[in-house]
């Protein structure tokens, strides 16, 4: 356990309010005429990657962008529904940088860095300015000015939105900006290219290896710096709200080359998703948190009640969130809402004995009219009806928590640089700003903050001090060989199970033991089960087809192999964190009211895991979190 490493999280000294300015002033600059000389590889072009690529392209760096999709516009950011936070205070309800900072730190259960979160709040206003200038059609009021709504964990309205398609609109804005740079020639676009390996020497990144997913050919590229913006790893659970191709592969391969992985067990389980209905189901669909603005969550007060909702009279309905948390009510943070839903179901109050609770709009429709509700949530209601066959305008929605977002990710310092020099990590792929629980509408904000307003400066600082990138052919050959061998190993698997079948088993283990509720005994069981499953994969899986052609099963196999390794680390992380905080609820550590019981004395740190080689065990590094501006309190939403 070495602590020395974290003397270098590079947080500037001085008052919180001045840190970011101070950092920017201390950053070295790259002369505009020199920028063309730097080769920057950007892996991933969701909100984080596309905004970074566009901004750095505008500065005339020489950029290559790689995505696994057939177009950057398909990144999973496209699916974000509800909105993006910002401290504009347009509603005049008392918002400020400090308040967004405080809500986010508290929402994350005091497990994020003060300095990072404060900076995030500081740049949040710039994001909205920029996005409006890009032509993003945010919701407006009748005067033509921007409208806001509320999200969980906040008692005011600071969320900007474009109906239920905020992620789509923001991504298309960033995508347009990126396309503009492609046209200008500052960015070269490589679609359907998957990063498989990182080329490093002496803890410094020199390039990366990619597989062209159409021809199957391996290609490597040298780099002055690499930016990873490859999204989250929620798909380790198989069933999640993530898109089918979301994966951990690029991050994981970097981890195996020495990049620390931070807080891997911090996984957000979102309270409002459409419950699982059939075997063979491939994914779960989110119903945006914004619905909790108007929807009321309830179950029957009678155990095992099998009556349909309309037969349950008002007096027999338990609006349990409003009952337990009178001041935040239905808008408590996600971890709290999810856990309470699980408690209700586990106690036998689930909708008709299923894993579901109600989200009811009848009062809101009565109060504001059908038209108003349809305007706000029409697309979500349609989506719900299409999937379930029920009409939420008439009967309450049934919802249940599902895996949604990963707060954990590659460790980065204040400059977004990983523990490998020259490797930067942005967006959901890094661990940075959300602590043990992310507030709604904060991921879009963070991805765009990283890409538009942080990396353009912090990257320059690195490049100015590392002007040469030396190209060693032998290193590149070796990395390509490694990837080739890995692909051949996968293709030689000719057992009797499909990759999906094994992935589903992993998902079940993780959901059961590293899901909403965890304990030592279960985690130890999971550790064993995952090890066995990994062996099963390398013996029993079947991977059809060839290497040099489009081969979706081969792509999947590589990703599932990585999830199987990550799963083990998630368990270790959850085991060693002997406290409850945010999403991480260990039954051994709870208050008498069944709320998460933190242990600030021993666990006020980031757990950053290092893997020195495949044969050695992980080493845990602890980055102590210092709180100089907020008082650590029990998170109270009552």
């Amino acid at each position: 356990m070495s602590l020395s490493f974290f003397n270098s999280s590079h947080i500037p000294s001085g008052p919180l309010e001045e840190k970011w300015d101070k950092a920017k002033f201390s950053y070295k600059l790259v002369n505009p005429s020199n920028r063309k000389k730097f080769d920057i590889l950007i892996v991933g072009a969701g909100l984080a990657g596309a905004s970074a690529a566009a901004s750095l392209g505008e500065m005339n760096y020489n950029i290559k962008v790689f995505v696994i999709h057939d177009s950057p516009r398909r990144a999973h950011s496209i699916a974000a529904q509800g909105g993006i936070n910002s401290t504009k205070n347009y509603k005049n309800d008392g918002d400020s940088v400090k308040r967004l900072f405080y809500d986010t730190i508290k929402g994350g259960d005091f497990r994020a860095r003060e300095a990072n979160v404060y900076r995030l709040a500081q740049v949040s206003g710039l994001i909205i300015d920029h996005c409006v200038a890009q032509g993003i059609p945010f919701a407006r009021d009748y005067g033509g000015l921007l409208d806001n709504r509320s999200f969980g964990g906040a008692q005011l309205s600071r969320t900007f939105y474009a109906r239920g398609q905020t992620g789509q609109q923001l991504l298309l804005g960033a995508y347009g900006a990126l396309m503009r740079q492609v046209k200008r020639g500052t960015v070269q676009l490589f679609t359907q290219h998957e990063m498989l390996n990182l080329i490093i020497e002496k803890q410094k990144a020199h390039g990366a290896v990619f597989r062209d997913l159409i021809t199957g050919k391996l290609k490597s590229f040298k780099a002055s710096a690499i930016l990873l913006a490859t999204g989250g790893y929620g798909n380790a659970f198989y069933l999640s709200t993530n898109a089918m191709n979301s994966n951990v592969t690029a991050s994981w391969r970097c981890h195996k080359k020495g990049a620390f992985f931070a807080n891997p067990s911090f996984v957000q389980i979102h309270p409002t998703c459409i419950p699982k209905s059939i075997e063979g189901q491939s994914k779960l669909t989110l119903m945006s948190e914004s619905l909790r603005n108007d929807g009321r969550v309830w179950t029957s007060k009678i155990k095992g009640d099998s009556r349909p909702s309309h037969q349950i009279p008002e007096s027999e309905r338990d609006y349990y969130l409003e009952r337990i948390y009178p001041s935040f009510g239905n808008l408590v943070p996600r971890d709290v809402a999810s856990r309470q839903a699980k408690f209700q179901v586990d106690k036998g109050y689930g909708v008709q004995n299923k894993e579901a609770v109600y989200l009811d709009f009848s009062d809101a429709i009565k109060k504001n009219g059908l038209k108003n509700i349809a305007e706000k949530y029409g697309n979500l209601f349609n989506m719900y009806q299409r999937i379930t066959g029920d009409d939420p305008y008439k009967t309450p929605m049934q919802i249940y928590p599902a895996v949604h977002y990963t707060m954990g990710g590659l460790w980065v310092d204040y400059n977004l640089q990983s523990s490998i020099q020259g490797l930067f990590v942005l967006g959901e792929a890094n661990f940075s700003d959300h602590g043990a629980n992310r507030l709604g509408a904060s991921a879009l904000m963070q991805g765009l903050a990283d890409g538009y307003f942080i990396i353009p400066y912090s990257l320059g600082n690195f490049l100015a001090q590392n002007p040469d990138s030396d190209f060693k052919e032998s290193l590149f050959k070796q990395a390509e060989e490694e990837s080739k061998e890995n692909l051949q190993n996968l293709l030689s698997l000719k057992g009797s199970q499909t990759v999906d079948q094994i992935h589903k088993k992993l998902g079940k283990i993780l959901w059961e033991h590293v899901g909403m509720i965890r304990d030592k005994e279960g985690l130890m069981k999971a550790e064993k089960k995952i090890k066995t499953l990994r062996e099963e994969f390398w013996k029993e899986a079947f991977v059809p087809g060839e290497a040099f052609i489009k081969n979706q099963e081969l792509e999947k196999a590589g990703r599932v192999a990585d999830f199987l390794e990550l799963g083990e680390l998630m368990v270790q992380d959850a085991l060693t964190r002997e406290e409850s905080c945010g999403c991480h609820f260990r039954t051994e550590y709870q208050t008498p009211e069944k709320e998460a019981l933190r242990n600030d004395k021993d666990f006020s740190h980031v757990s950053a895991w290092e893997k020195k080689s495949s044969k050695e065990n992980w080493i845990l590094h602890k980055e102590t979190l210092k709180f100089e501006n907020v008082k650590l309190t029990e998170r109270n939403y009552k």
Partner: protein
Amino acid sequence: MNFNLKIWRQKSNKVPGSFQSLFVKDISEDMSFLEMLDKINEDLILKKEEPIAFDHDCREGICGTCSLMINGSAHGPQKAITSCQLYMREFQNGSEIYVEPFRAKAFPIIRDLIIDRSAFDRIQQAGGFISVNTGSAPPANTIPVPKEKANQAFSSALCIGCGACVASCKNSSASLFTAARIFHFSKLPQGQAEKTNRVLNMVKQMEKEGFGACSHTGACSVSCPKEISLETISEMHREWRKAFLNKTT
């Protein structure tokens, strides 16, 4: 439920393709169309045969990746949905279902049901943006945008770039896709400065990619999962004429 499927198989764009007949049993009516394909693939793999290659990602109708021609209709027989939002309860038990890729000269087949839609990216590169560098934007509420205009812009900004409009057009025109973006920006004050070049450049690129001309049949809008309106095309044509005259006089 049981179905008799005829699925297009083609190993690459260098070899010819053909339909493969597959009979499937025990399909739940609550399964999505793509989940049925998952199941078929699982069976194929376990029989050591090559699974069907098909494109998909979000499976909730927003990423625009899925792209199946089902019984001759882009995204299947239902209105206003994508292939991934289609459920088996919409089909008659025992029926025959043809599954093909979206076909167009500008969308070469990569494998089986997967096509190359990079032409769409190049149309966007020609002008699908407002030129604003990071850091140079004025405060967000500087320019009010009437709610109605913002809503109009939003309704065409919804395009997911799937290509159903192209696949269902007898001329393989990409007019609805191109017009959706042009219409979105033309409704906003921020989009005015580059109006002329945007429409000229995007239309030129569309033609260069090998998409056909629009002959106003309206098939595109009918198959569009986001119900992008034909009005966008009329507006694009109007803008184009204005821009063309502006440029030449």
